[in-house]
């Protein structure tokens, strides 16, 4: 516990810093692997779309006398004939009818299922009727949902571009969003779970969460990079990296808090309930929240830094920062014994971070021991003109 607060302190001050933005290639590679896995799930295996989307067959067993445990019995009766198909069993109480909805069966299978149901529920064959049902989540519902999504994405890009004063943040946020959705849906496909309206709602929740988390991180990035642009002590990437590090504790705390309830649902769903809406939903949410947190740190911010670093102004900032940091490093090296960080004046955090991000002579931020120092003490070398 105390070490965690310590960890937070060190991250904040820059004493400890993970080079997240600088090692973007690693994260891109990790994500690429995940995305490839997800696409294998998506395109290779394909999404298992539930009967709410494509319609199916419906059997009605009327005049059932013994309805105990009708759900399990109905499922087993159909499950033995058509393995792996999704079966929804409901009971219509005023006519004592058990309604069983399945994916669409051909005529031969329908007949078999009818007789299986008849023997299971002990009714005459003529008490069973079969018909086809259409999709309750029809094409028009999907169409509208997709239109709504596209409008949402356009609007959110505009809002973010206005708020952050750069479209690049919108782009980076959208990339992270797409990344999260593809991975979540892909893992869903890999697991072979069926996509129901409930899971679509789960995906939408992920969409909201992913954007939310990215915006929180970006807000800190915005703040730090503005500071950096003013002081010229850090390049854009360094400032962004510092922001990510400073929000790391918050990101960890938030994702733990968000994941704990979902994890407990997942746990109970897995061990107590078995497959069902709860398990499907909680898996989608668990994966989505985890990936969403990951992407806002490891994907969105590096992508943003890559985008912004190409700007001439940012290139200039980088040069300024390099000059400044080189100067700082020399200063620290030349006068280490005299100055612990506490004595240094000026409350701003930038110079500290700059020290760490500098040439590495004092990577831990601690002053070097006099014995380690080199060079004459009283005559600081004048640096050559090109490096000034």
């Amino acid at each position, binding site marked *: 516990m105390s070490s965690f607060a310590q960890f937070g302190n060190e991250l904040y001050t820059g004493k400890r810093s993970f080079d997240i933005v600088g090692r973007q290639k690693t994260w891109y590679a990790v994500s690429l692997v995940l995305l490839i896995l997800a696409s294998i799930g998506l395109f290779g295996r394909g999404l298992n779309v539930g009967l709410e989307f494509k319609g199916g067959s419906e059997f009605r067993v009327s005049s059932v006398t013994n309805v105990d445990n009708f759900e399990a019995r109905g499922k087993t009766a159909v499950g033995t004939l058509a393995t792996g198909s999704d079966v929804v069993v409901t009971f219509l109480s005023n006519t004592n009818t058990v309604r069983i909805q399945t994916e669409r069966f051909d005529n031969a299978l329908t007949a078999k299922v009818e007789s299986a149901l008849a023997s299971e529920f002990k009714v005459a064959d003529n008490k069973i009727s079969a018909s086809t049902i259409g999709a309750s989540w029809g094409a028009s519902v999907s169409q509208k949902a997709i239109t709504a999504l596209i409008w949402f994405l356009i609007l959110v890009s505009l809002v973010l571009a206005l708020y952050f004063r750069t479209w690049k943040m919108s782009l980076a946020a959208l990339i992270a969003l797409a990344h999260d959705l593809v991975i979540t849906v892909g893992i869903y496909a890999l697991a072979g779970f069926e996509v129901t309206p409930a899971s679509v709602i789960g995906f*939408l929740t992920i969409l909201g969460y992913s954007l939310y988390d990215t915006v929180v991180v970006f807000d800190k990035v915005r703040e730090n990079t503005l500071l950096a642009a003013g002081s010229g002590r850090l390049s854009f990437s360094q400032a962004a990296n510092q922001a990510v590090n400073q929000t790391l504790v918050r990101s960890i705390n938030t994702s733990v808090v968000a994941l*704990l309830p979902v994890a*407990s649902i997942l746990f109970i769903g897995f061990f107590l309930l078995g497959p069902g809406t709860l398990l499907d939903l909680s898996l989608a949410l668990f994966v989505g929240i985890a990936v969403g947190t990951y992407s806002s740190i490891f994907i969105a911010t590096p992508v943003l830094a890559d985008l912004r670093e190409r700007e001439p102004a940012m290139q200039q900032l980088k040069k300024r920062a390099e000059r400044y940091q080189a100067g700082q490093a020399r200063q620290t090296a030349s006068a280490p014994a005299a100055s612990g960080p506490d004595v240094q004046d000026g409350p701003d955090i930038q110079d500290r971070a700059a020290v760490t991000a500098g040439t590495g002579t004092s990577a831990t931020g601690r002053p070097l021991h006099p014995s380690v120092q080199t060079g004459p003490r009283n005559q600081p070398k004048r640096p050559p003109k090109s490096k000034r």
Partner: protein
Amino acid sequence: MAFNPRNRGPLRTLAALFVIVFGLYGFLGAVSTWGDAQRTPKLGLDLEGGTQLILQPKLVGNQTINEGQITKAVDIIRQRVNGSGISEAEVTTQGGSNIVVSLPGTPDKATIESLKKSSQLRFRAVLVEGSAAPTPVPTSTGTPTGTPTSTATATAAATGKATATAKAAGTATPTAKSGYPPALAAATTPAPTGTATPGATATPGTTATASPTTAPAGKPANASDPAWITPDVQAAYTALNCAKPKDIEAIVDDPAKPMVTCSVDGRAKYILGPAEVLGSEVSNATSGQQQTQGGSTGIWEVRLDFNAAGTKAFGDVTSRLVVLPPPRNQFAIVLDNLVISAPVTQAALTAGNASITGSFTAASSKVLADQIKFGALPMSFTVLTQDDISPTLGGDQLRRGLLAGLIGLILVVGYSLFQYRVLGLVTVSSLVIAASITYAAVTLFGWSYGFRLTMAGVTGLIVSIGITADSFIIYFERVRDEVRDGRALRAAVETGWVRGRRTILISDAVNFLAAIVLYVLAASNVRGFAFTLMLTTIIDIVVVMLFTHPLLSILANTKFFGEGHKWSGLDPERLGARTVTYAGRGRVTIAARRAAAEGNQS
């Protein structure tokens, strides 16, 4: 505890929050005790079960329906049954032609009726209007008349004037006649430009009445041409008795032909020209009180917006009708074969919107607006079966889901205490407040708007714990950052709040945007999701603004937090505040201790 004047502001905010919370629960208690609300949230189809209706289309003669029509019908019924999208009803087809509607709970008779009904909305010009008796009362308008020739030019000028009035004054057109028929005016957008000649509107109608009668031969020139009244039509009109249900059943509504029909209240009957504007050309219909510059008039109206085709057609109709003598300056709004309203055209309305006024109440104007908006269902249905259905998810799914949620919540509490020590209690109490507001809101929306919680909704709410807690975490981390920078706690709370608030607001704004867009544009379950998201986002902001922040401000004034007790979670030393902190009573502790520590290290 002595009253600290610094706490006045925060205490006031807290008081406001408690007023809101107690207000919500008081209201909930009142409507559940004296009204018909229940004290628990309404549950969706998958958790509670409900009623299933199988609707079979009524086919006349050898009429057939194709898949496209049935899909359209499903969409319309889905709109009707679940217009706001939050009751999570399911509509699907069965066997290619039947429609299966599954509703949570037990629907009342009116709901079932509204599902069965066809609805075809058309606008037709009135040719003849009479009282509902079988023989028409010979009014001045009852005789077939030709189009006026000599007066036409004069009235055209008047029309121009009237149009101008309608455009400039917007709502200023006064209702010329009292009572039936209702007046039609340009839809209400109060224009600042004023009050130009309201009297002009009434003129065209009165000047043109005494038109000469010449029986026209051949084809009718337009939809208002009396030549549509063939002897057959005239005979049907004479025979029609609006008091007889059988007569009403027999009314045929063929869009290409003139029709003979009754008003929906049975007080008048009409011969109408062929249909000119179709219900599908109305893009939106809303109900509300008529607005003028002076504010609400208290008259209920139904406002219509037309799409491009409708705007053109409606503009043409009104431009033509406005110069005609009564009753031919009226047009009839025909819904399901009956005239629901036959307003007098007071101006040519070419702007693509219109309003219908009449003897509406709040409820009847809403019904009409909904009927028009949710549009043309080209067939009516019979209810084949009506069954009670069991929940698709067993009761133990919900029970265990809630159990899981509870365990999750306990874990969250444990984690926050671990992370933030006593400050964690602020998180926990904020979450408790958020949860209680959510519970009341969900229950109240269940009562007033038919909001129902499905399994997906329940998990959505559980996830919202994370997003709500995140607001606190952002806030606390900001405060800690400020403490690390060496600010005294009270100042740290304020600056941390100002900075954290910005982040909280923008990230919630994104969520809110998602909710609004999805709610407005999507259908069915997605709308239910959007509604839940909207609710939790608003509650998140309310709680962090009205509870967490004031509470923390007050706590910052206490000794325990203000001086950074070890267990407060805001201990400057543990947070590594690096500049000198004046800790009160002349102690300057941190720097000295830290300096010592640094000395030992190096």
